[in-house]
């Protein structure tokens, strides 16, 4: 029986599962959160005390590691669908590892900026940079909690396919956070 079409209920919209609807809505809320931050950023930018801060080149490396993390998660999702246990585990491992590399790198970038004297309260451009990277980092951290839970389960079972739904949700979340990061990075670079 198709679990998305329970016989005694109306079919859900677009044949999505409950969890998919929940996640897509959550991502919509996350989008709006960053949209408001961008709005405020652009609004505040036009005031005369705004002094753009130099974007550390380390962020390029971080962006690459987030891309690799996202690819790893995507690989894991495809492996789970194909019931390939080993690839699932490798994908999850690579994804999680590079997500942690990204977070460490972001933290390091903060340290660099502080060392160069771009502290948080000196200029609104600095504050926005710290605020936006921190909020994005928090979302990544939330993803890592989910990653830990799902990875644990995937290590316990040989039936990779049974993890497919969860892992593909995880991958979706990761792709989306990558997209948001690219947008925010673009915002920093262009201003």
């Amino acid at each position, binding site marked *: 029986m198709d679990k998305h079409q329970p016989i005694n209920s*109306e079919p859900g919209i677009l044949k999505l599962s409950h969890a998919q609807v*929940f996640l897509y809505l959550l991502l919509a*809320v996350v989008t709006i959160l960053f949209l408001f931050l961008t709005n405020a950023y652009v*609004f*505040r930018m036009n005031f005369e005390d705004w002094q753009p801060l130099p974007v550390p080149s380390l962020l390029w490396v971080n962006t690459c590691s987030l891309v690799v993390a996202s690819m790893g998660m995507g690989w894991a999702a495809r492996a789970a669908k194909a019931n390939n246990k080993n690839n699932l585990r490798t994908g999850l491992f690579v994804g999680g590892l590079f997500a942690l590399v990204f977070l460490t790198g972001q933290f390091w970038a903060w340290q660099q900026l502080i060392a160069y004297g771009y502290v948080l*309260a000196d200029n609104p451009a600095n504050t926005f940079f710290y605020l936006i990277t921190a*909020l994005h980092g928090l979302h990544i951290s939330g993803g890592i909690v989910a990653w830990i839970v799902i990875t644990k389960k995937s290590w316990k079972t040989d039936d990779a396919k049974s993890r497919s739904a969860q892992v593909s949700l995880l991958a979706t979340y990761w792709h989306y956070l990558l997209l948001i990061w690219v947008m925010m990075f673009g915002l920093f670079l262009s201003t």
Partner: protein
Amino acid sequence: MEQNAAYEGQQIYHPKGWWGHYVFSQDHKIIALQYICVALSIGLIGMFLSLLIRMQLGFPGLFDSIDAGSYYQDVTMHGMIMIIYLLTALFLGGFGNYLIPLMLGSRDMAFPYVNMLSFWVYFLSVIILVASFFVPSGPTGAGWTLYPPQSILEGTPGGDGAGILLMLVSLAVFIVAFTMGGLNYITTVLQSRARGMKMMRMPLIIWCIFLATFLGLLAFPALFVGAIMLTFDRVLETSFFMPEIFKGGEVLDYGGGSPVLFQHLFWFFGHPEVYIIALPAFGIISELISCHARKNIFGYNMMVWALIAIAGISFIVWAHHMYVAGMNPYLGFFFATTTLIIAVPTAIKVYNWVLTLWHANIKMTVPMLYCLAFLITFLIGGLTGLFLGNVSVDVPLSDTYFVVGHFHMVMAVSPVLALFGGLYHWFPSVTGRMLDDRLGTIHFWITFIGTYLIYFPMHYIGFLGVPRRYYSNQQYDFIPDSVADLNQFITICALIVGASQFILLYNFVNSAIRGKKAPKNPWGACTLEWQTLESPPGHGNWGDQLPVVYRWPYDYGLPGATADFVPQNVPDEQIT
């Protein structure tokens, strides 16, 4: 049943032990009750604060404990508690949780665990809010809009303590709770409807809660961002919102920020918030009016599209709260226009309610009394809104009691009337007992007449130009003495109305224990929540089999049927 539940594609959690049943429950009905109890409790505190405010205005200087500082603290906390922690939580967390699964023929919310978390995080936000009463120098007195720069400076009442921080943190936590609940409500409405329950067969209250939740999910992030940035400004002395500030000749660390940016963020949330509260009230009225007038709702499709239009337009009217902040006249013109446009779908709804009553078999039950009171009150509040929506009228009236009269009529009294009506209507479904009608009628008339005696005079005081935020009106020549008399009168009425709420409370407690046993469907309603196997509905709501829906929710007085209503789960061939 276990197998059945899996077959239906719906998960259901079976609680273990007393704690699992009543405290950390994942059953939507218990969570709804928890929301209602916590919201009503904090609402009582909010009402008590309003009486303190009235005491100062009616009898200035009677209590030594109410000085200017504590007056502003009371005003701030009264506003915030009533709008966010009482009404938003009660309508969406309380009514939403109880009614969505029952009315849609579902076993529970799509994600019961997240639902439980949502309540406990809400509870945490209430605790943080209440904690601010107990910190040194008390809660913030910045006004409920929390406008910077004054809200985070030390000179503000409560500003040298942790009050403002606790308020901001509490709001952020509340928003997290709301997001968890809200995602759940929308997922449930989209995914977990019983067979036959098409979107256009959903009861209007479900449409209302559904759209109000959408509004909340889209609008609350603006407040979240505003609250976090304001926290940064307060704690880390950043300058998102803070302009250059001189204090006693010295320059503070702030500089260059824009207070108006906060106003935009706040009101981008704040105006949809009006509809987050109003839409569920509309929904309750739609259900009650149809059921207690024994007539189908007039223009169901039009009602749904009007709701969608209101929800959409409510996002482009926010700056009408900011006319006096110094706005480009063209922008003001735009927002005045959208504000008047939103009156159109709202008027459609009011006309449809009135047309539902036309030639209906109106039963003067307590819920119906509340419906009629709501219609009148909402009309009056809405009409004064048309005054304030126009820039040239708003500018002189904006800082007067006219505004207090207007918004209390339209978004305090109206939703509360709908709320009371809803509580009377669904009380039998929750407890299996009826509320006492006599006490209910007494409570209704005191509340209804009382609120008019309180808020009508405020419009006149406002026209006289009495400023709304002042602690004392005594030393101003332009305010005539008669205002003081009127203020005394209002205060006495407010005390009576405040005291009469204990009739409701007594009625609740007494009826829940000793009330008359309710029949299964006491009002003869068509919607599914009254068609459960047991009454009150048991765990999992529907016994072995989910209901199947054959018709829309308002089949009252169907030609050819002997009963004057046909429930949604009765097929055509079973109509007798």
